[in-house]
């Protein structure tokens, strides 16, 4: 167990440089690239004294090194600055309002993609070389190339506009929001025994998470297929067969062994999941981080844009840490 602990501690410490590189990258993209982000975002029509005031508000009038240090210092204190529009709320509060929606969407989409991938991938592997195998292969490529807004709108058209089964936008029917505990509507409505809110939240979740889930499932189809084929050729499977063990039981053991590389893919897919969520949220008017970022770009709310991107960077770093720890727990070879 001590080697596991040591591994986790080392891995956690390695997050720090990654986070700092990402934050530095964000800092430079938002500041150095065009010279003046405020001018670029606000446009040319604003009088210079207003521009100067906005630069001051965003702390952009100080020397670049001072800006950089106070930027890092503030982020590590959890201070993302204040929004530059409307109530000028702290950006971190705005993010706290929007993030649960993205988390809920990504959890459901992720689950759908893994389940679909395991299903299609194992069908292909157990029927290797058949027409079914070939069609699963086509599925994995086509799913990957589906353009999210297009696929989402086709689903909206079919299930929303023509069949009236699912709503085509929003997180929940207006006024039905459950009492806020975690901000995840599904979880909150279960915790408060609110059946109506639960069914409305699930109905609203279905199409967006299906859209994102299908698009991401292609990569899992392939990796599950290839790993399963490899495992099915190993000696212990032949030994099981020779001993006359039931096919379903063999399939279970094969799947268990084929699953470890799938976890690595989950970590890699996470960035794609977040990028896809931006398009899914826009398509389904989902009030999450993606729509927050785009909305604030439109309102030229510089501090919020920076805060949202920084938050994405931190989120990516934390998830990659979690995936590596899960990986180490499952596969003892990693720890050494």
């Amino acid at each position: 167990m001590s080697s596991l602990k040591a591994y986790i501690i080392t891995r956690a410490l390695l997050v720090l440089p990654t986070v700092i590189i990402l934050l530095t990258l964000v800092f430079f993209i938002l500041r150095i690239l065009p010279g003046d982000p405020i001018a670029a975002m606000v446009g040319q029509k604003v009088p210079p004294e207003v521009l100067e005031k906005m630069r001051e508000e965003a702390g952009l009038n100080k020397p670049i090194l001072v800006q950089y240090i106070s930027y890092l210092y503030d982020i590590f204190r959890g201070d993302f600055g204040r929004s530059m529009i409307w109530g000028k709320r702290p950006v971190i509060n705005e993010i706290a309002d929007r993030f649960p929606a993205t988390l809920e969407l990504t959890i459901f989409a992720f689950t759908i993609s893994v389940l679909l991938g395991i299903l299609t991938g194992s069908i292909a592997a157990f029927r290797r070389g058949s027409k079914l195998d070939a069609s699963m292969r086509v599925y994995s490529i086509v799913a990957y190339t589906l353009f999210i807004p297009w696929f989402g709108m086709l689903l909206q058209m079919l299930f929303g506009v023509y069949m009236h089964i699912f709503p085509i936008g929003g997180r929940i029917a207006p006024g039905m929001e459950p009492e806020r505990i975690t901000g995840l509507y599904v979880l909150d409505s279960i915790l408060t025994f609110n059946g109506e809110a639960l069914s409305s939240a699930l109905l609203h979740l279905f199409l967006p998470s299906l859209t994102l889930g299908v698009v991401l499932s292609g990569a899992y189809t392939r990796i599950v297929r290839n790993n399963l084929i490899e495992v099915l050729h190993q000696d212990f499977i032949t030994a099981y067969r020779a001993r006359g063990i039931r096919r379903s039981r063999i399939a279970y053991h094969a799947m268990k062994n084929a699953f470890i590389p799938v976890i690595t893919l989950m970590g890699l897919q996470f960035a794609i999941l977040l990028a896809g969520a931006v398009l899914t949220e826009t398509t389904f008017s989902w009030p999450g981080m993606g729509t927050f970022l785009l909305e604030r770009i439109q309102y030229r709310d510089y501090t919020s844009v920076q805060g949202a991107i920084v938050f994405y960077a931190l989120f990516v770093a934390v998830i990659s840490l979690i995936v590596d720890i899960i990986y180490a727990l499952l596969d003892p070879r990693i720890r050494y």
Partner: protein
Amino acid sequence: MENAEVKTLARRLFKPLIPEAEGRWMVISGLAIVIFVLLLALLAEFIAPYNPTKSTGDVLAPPSLKHPMGTDNLGRDVLSRVIFGSRVVLMVVFTASLLSMSIGVPLGLISGYFGGKLDRTLSMLMDSMYAFPSLILAIAIAAVLGPSILNAMVAISVVYVPTYFRMIRGQTLSIKSRLFVEAAKAMGAGHFKTLSRYILPNIVTTIIVVFSLSVADAILTEAGLSFLGFIVTAPTPDWGYDLSAGKPYLPAGYWWMITFPGMMVMILALGFALIGEGLSELYAPRGER
């Protein structure tokens, strides 16, 4: 290069076209799709039945013989817009991909070949960029630079540099320890000669595969940026942008405004993905398929 070397390289590059090669159909169908779209873009003026930016007088007309893909809310012919729309996406994606390739490949070669501190620093930077969601990175860059075709090219090219870097660096690492490279060095080949004459020819196939696959991905990124309004403004036709223009008309059932532009995004991305997938299978040594 010697004559024999050229022949070996040529044989390896064109192996996908040998009739008995496995997975050949993927490369061929992918190529057919890409050539089809390229022709659409080149011959748009001659193929398109109407002016893509002018009203035909029929507003929101459903698909018919006169308008095979219907007309949009401003009465413009959707088919003509789809044909002309191939231009922006091809131009942006090709330019951006060539840019990221010409930055990513040399950096990957140098980093993998020389190793050391430079390699560690570059790898860390590229890995961090690679871990960040590509579309969000592109959005950040495009937002700061402002919406335009040129800026979209810059944003997309930055996003794909790490993809080339990682693949080429990995390949260079594994090839540089091979016996023939050692031999070349022992016989007095300098760094430049070793890299250009002994390592580069052995990663050409990787570059081609990575190019096809990352172009497929870049098409989706371009369409995404365009859909979000970061590339073109009205009335320029572009598939992603046209899709977002059709979105408000979806609840009323005007399906043709969104169906065709979005379908083209998928078809073009599929074309490059098929080429990339097929080639990576064909170029792989026998045991690794």
